[in-house]
């Protein structure tokens, strides 16, 4: 019984933390663009490259 009395608040507060985290994420706009977020990780967003671009190559045939 003692164990239960301790475990119940622990379980509930853990759940509440999860809920709070979700609501915060929602408020900060993290659910506005689900498709974009899923794909953005695949691309590098770096700063503009130095002035001299890479030496030119022939375009790949039928890219």
């Amino acid at each position, binding site marked *: 019984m003692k164990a239960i009395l301790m475990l119940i608040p622990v379980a509930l507060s853990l*759940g509440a933390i999860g809920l709070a985290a979700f609501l915060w994420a929602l408020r900060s706009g993290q659910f506005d*663009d689900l498709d974009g977020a899923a794909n953005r990780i695949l691309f590098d967003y770096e700063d503009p490259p130095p002035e001299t671009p890479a030496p030119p190559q022939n375009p790949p045939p039928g890219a």
Partner: protein
Amino acid sequence: MSTCAHCGSEIGPASDAGPDFCCRGCQGAYTLVRGMGLDSYYQRRCIDPALRPLKPDEDAGPIDYRAHVQSGEDGLDSLYLMVEGMHCAACVWLIESLLARQPGVAEARMNMTTRRLVVRWRPEENDANRVLAPVQAVGYHLQPYDPARLSKEGERQEKALLRAMAVAGFAAGNVMLFSVSIWAGDGGSMNPATRSLFHWISALIAMPAIVYCLRPFARSAMTALMARRTNMDVPITLAVVLASGMSLWETMHGGHHAYFDAAISLLFFLLIGRYLDSRARGRARSAAEHLLSLGASAVTVLEADGSRRLLPPEQVRVGMMVLVAPGERIGIDATVTGGLSEVDTSLITGETVPVEVRAGAAVFAGTLNLSGALRMVVTAVGENTLLSEIVRMMEVAEQGRAKYVAVADRVSRFYAPVVHGLGLVTFLYWVLFTAMAWQEALLTAISVLIVTCPCALALAVPVVQVVASGRLLRRGILLKSSTAQERLASVDTVVFDKTGTLTVGRPELIREDAAWSEEDLVLAASIAAASKHPVARAITRALPGVRVAEAVREVPGCGLEWGEVRLGGRRWLGVADDGAGRSGPELFLQKPGCPPVRFAFTDRPRQDAAQVVARLRRMGLAVELLSGDRAETVAQVAGELDIKQWRAGCTPAEKCARLTELAAAGHRVLMVGDGLNDAPALALAHVSMSPSSAVDVSQTAADLIFQGGQLGPVIEALQVARKGSTLVKENFVLAFGYNLITIPMAMMGMVTPLIAAIAMSTSSVVVISNALRLARGRMR
């Protein structure tokens, strides 16, 4: 055949841009992307064959973005744009990177879900047109929109739903934790004090969550009751309120059964359905609404002192003097005071042959000035333009359609009273005819409400709709209204507009029995390549990659001159108008010492138009053609596509009249159209579709919007809708069948919270998995 390194479309034999590109535009775009060091785009992208290839479009009228720039308080200018032509995530990366490398750009962020782009830059370092030029050069179309006019309402509601869903999920999970222990201890291994404690904790978690999550349902139920109607939300609200109220009472009196878990998990399931539904529809709506495409062309106002000023159409006043360059869309209603030109009115009237205008002629917003510069005095703006009049007509027609009642609400009209009646009968029976205490009888009655509770029923329709609209979205068909699919399934007549719907909507050279030789065509095309006139562009399109003639002189309102050779209209070259066979625009080429050679153009039917019409007929649908164009042209297209029923020269009002006539004869009509003249008819029809090339008013009026250059989506949409409506019916049968078993059990008082919970979730799962069948499999 090899494909273009930039746009991925096939390279024609006559390409002037070398073996790797289909046209010079693509070559330029490729060089630009490589020059910026962004060429890894080509390895990473995946081309969506259903969409327009990423080709820089020289035919698009120039949009002056400067008129739509908003200056922020932080000293940055910003522009909100809708991006068209996006294929995959690599496009997002390319657009953002291209913009980020422009001087002065502080931020460029694109939302992939809504396809909206926000650009911010420092105004002293760059201007709007220059910032956006590279993105357009690569082939994307950018359409400005006004974020202030975008309704925040939908977005806020969606967020509220998501929040409620999270709260319900949290509460349902935790309450279930206690419920399972109570069920497990039901045999007697749990002492009443522990059970009571668990009930209290459940109440503590569930009650605030229920109050919070019930609001969307309660609000809708109240609105329905106020209007003396009932909808699905009435039994939901009643069941949840009664169940939680009764459970609370039970808890306070140390009772055996509490239904907190049932009440909150019911809300959780329903909120999932609601959220998915609103998301699927919100996406379609956001893609279609609030574009400024007609208003996008800024108006050049000529001031009294001779200076010129660019103004957005809404700031133009009656009586102002306005200049319209050739190739520009006219943004206001006006009377021409100077200049000579031809005007393409196909958007307003559906007519494909350009109309000649001179001083004194009236022109309307939305038409396209073709050949010469025009000077005109504004006669109407805003509410008073022909455009607004058509919009008003459309709004009136739309009110009629709002009367359509969704299938789910029709079912609940008889379902809700039956359920409530059964609950009442159960309660009265146990109180009056047995020795049961009234509390226990009420509990039995509530269990009737809970198990019949329209969980499966309320999910039956939305789940099918979500799956169907997801499937259609992947095919480039946007479903805007929640009941469109039900309406689409019952259609028995399809009415098409001609210009821009059945046909491509732009002139193409007629090659059959032509009076010209190949040599004439080469000469004409090379001269025409110097001009932006749509008919001239059509002749260039007929022979892509032709060498551009140098030193071509454009004679406003007349044509083109290259040395002694002239290319232009009938009047300019002095050809007598015999009036025969004029079903489309034409051009004449006159070489010195030779009689003029005639090039005729026609607006060809879309590639798959004939097949689609034949398929529709095989599906048992009547096909009809209503056009604003002249009779000869319409007759020709109708003959080509084998459409027996057609009418020409229809005004918007006449189109509406014909639709009313059909409706009165008991037909359910699907209207497919794109022009402004179709907008009222689109709003009036039982259900309507528009290609995404349509003007924004029509897109607002239509229930469905389809992308791409083909008509196939009309069939796809009809098939998905029919399959969907079968699934909805199956789901209703499943839901009712389940109720046939559970209602008697509940009325006999045999349903405990455990059984209620199991029965409710299984029925929901069955209904959802049935709906998911629509996502798989081919439609043939």
